[in-house]
């Protein structure tokens, strides 16, 4: 009978936790029925050969367990194509940024000495670790989507359908799953970057002691980090809501406009506050670009450039908000907020 225990143990760890013991009890009972029925001498304990043949008939533990479980996926077939697409895009972007770093670091050097070779090896090592990190983040985001995505992303075979649905679908502002997934992934990377790796955003150069990075964002930037983290988190939450919903509704429109207003307020604060970029003299000299400007002039120029970009971003956000309000409320393309009664 030990063989039966081993068989049930093998099935046990393949079963979903729900009803596990109950299922095993039933299988044991079924096996005992089969053995009892086939044992030529019920007074005697069944022979091993009989038990083996009964187990063979009942089937391999893997197959038996599969019959009881519903299949669950880390990333299921409904979102797998989007996952692959986003993964490719993100990996290409990460690889491109790394290669760009390689080119910049080599460009400043006159000869191709052992130091430069070391630098290249370090960058290649860095490339693999950042590719793996990007792969991990994308996979985590999609595993999250797999568990939250709306039924709309599944194959809706059993739903009632009318050709009118086609007309209504045309009127609805559908969301693009792949686009949202890219946004969420990049947002998470961005939050991690400004919260944990702020010092890594900077100028990189290689000297005798190895890679040196001089941060380019100064302490004036720090007070904004919680606010920026907050609105990026709101953005992620809105994107998750959209993924769940499948299309824009009025609630999403209102949230989008509110988040944009919040972003605009933070951006205005950054523009009107003290400058946040500082290029140190030592880093600028190390970069060795042979330009006749000082580090201070460069810093001022970068700050002005940043302010112009932020100004454009504000303009963009205002236009975007108006577009969403127009689409949602005037053209009525965003469905009404559903209020459950």
């Amino acid at each position, binding site marked *: 009978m030990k063989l039966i225990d081993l068989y049930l143990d093998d099935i046990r760890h393949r079963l979903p936790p729900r*009803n596990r013991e109950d*299922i095993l*009890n*039933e299988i044991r*009972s*079924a096996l005992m029925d089969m053995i009892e029925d086939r044992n030529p001498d019920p007074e005697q304990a069944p022979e091993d050969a009989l038990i083996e043949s009964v187990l063979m008939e*009942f*089937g391999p533990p893997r197959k038996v367990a599969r019959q*009881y479980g519903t299949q669950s996926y880390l990333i299921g077939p409904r979102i797998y194509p989007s996952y692959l697409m986003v993964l490719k895009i993100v990996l290409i972007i990460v690889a491109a940024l790394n290669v760009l770093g390689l080119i910049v670091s080599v460009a400043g050097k006159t000869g191709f000495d052992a130091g430069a070779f070391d630098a290249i090896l370090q960058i290649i090592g860095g490339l693999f670790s950042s590719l793996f990190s990007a792969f991990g983040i994308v996979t985590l985001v999609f595993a999250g989507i797999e568990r939250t995505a709306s039924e709309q992303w599944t194959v809706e075979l059993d739903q009632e359908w009318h050709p009118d649905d086609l007309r209504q679908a045309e009127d609805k502002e559908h969301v693009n799953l792949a686009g949202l997934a890219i946004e969420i992934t990049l947002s998470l990377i961005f939050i991690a970057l400004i919260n944990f790796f702020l010092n890594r955003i900077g100028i990189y150069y290689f000297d005798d002691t190895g890679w040196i990075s001089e941060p380019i964002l100064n302490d004036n930037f720090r007070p904004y980090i919680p606010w920026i983290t907050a609105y990026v988190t709101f953005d992620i939450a809105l994107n998750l809501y959209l993924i769940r919903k499948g299309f824009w509704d009025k609630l999403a429109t209102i949230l989008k406009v509110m988040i944009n207003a919040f972003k605009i307020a933070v951006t205005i604060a950054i523009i009107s506050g003290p400058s946040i970029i500082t290029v140190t003299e030592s880093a600028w000299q190390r970069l060795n670009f042979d330009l006749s400007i000082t580090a201070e002039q460069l810093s001022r120029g970068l700050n002005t450039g940043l302010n112009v970009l932020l100004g454009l971003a504000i303009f963009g956000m205002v236009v975007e908000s108006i577009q969403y309000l127009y689409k949602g409320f005037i053209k009525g393309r965003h469905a009404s907020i559903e209020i459950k009664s």
Partner: protein
Amino acid sequence: MNDDTLSEQTRSLVQELRRGVITLAVLSQLHEEQYGYSLMKRLEHRGMQVDQGTLYPLLRRLEEQKLLESDWRVEASRPRRYYMLSQFGKKVLQEMRTEWTRIKTTVDDLLTNEKEKENEIN
């Protein structure tokens, strides 16, 4: 009918056909309570072979769908789980029976027409 005499292709089609009617066959035998093995023997005796790996999970699913009720009982020092149709299961079985009769008549009719046509051509 013995599966061994069928071609590979036919065998898989017949399996599919059988899978479709197993639920009806199982429900039909549960007006009185049965445990898994006794139900399997009963179906086998009537010419309906059901794989154990299919039968036990099916009974569980039907119970989850409230078509069956079950309870554990100890008999001859061994526990067995007995299944029986619930009130809802009886109603569903009745509806399925009507539907089955309709399908059977239609398909029989289609197959008879087909046979007649074949004979005409020959």
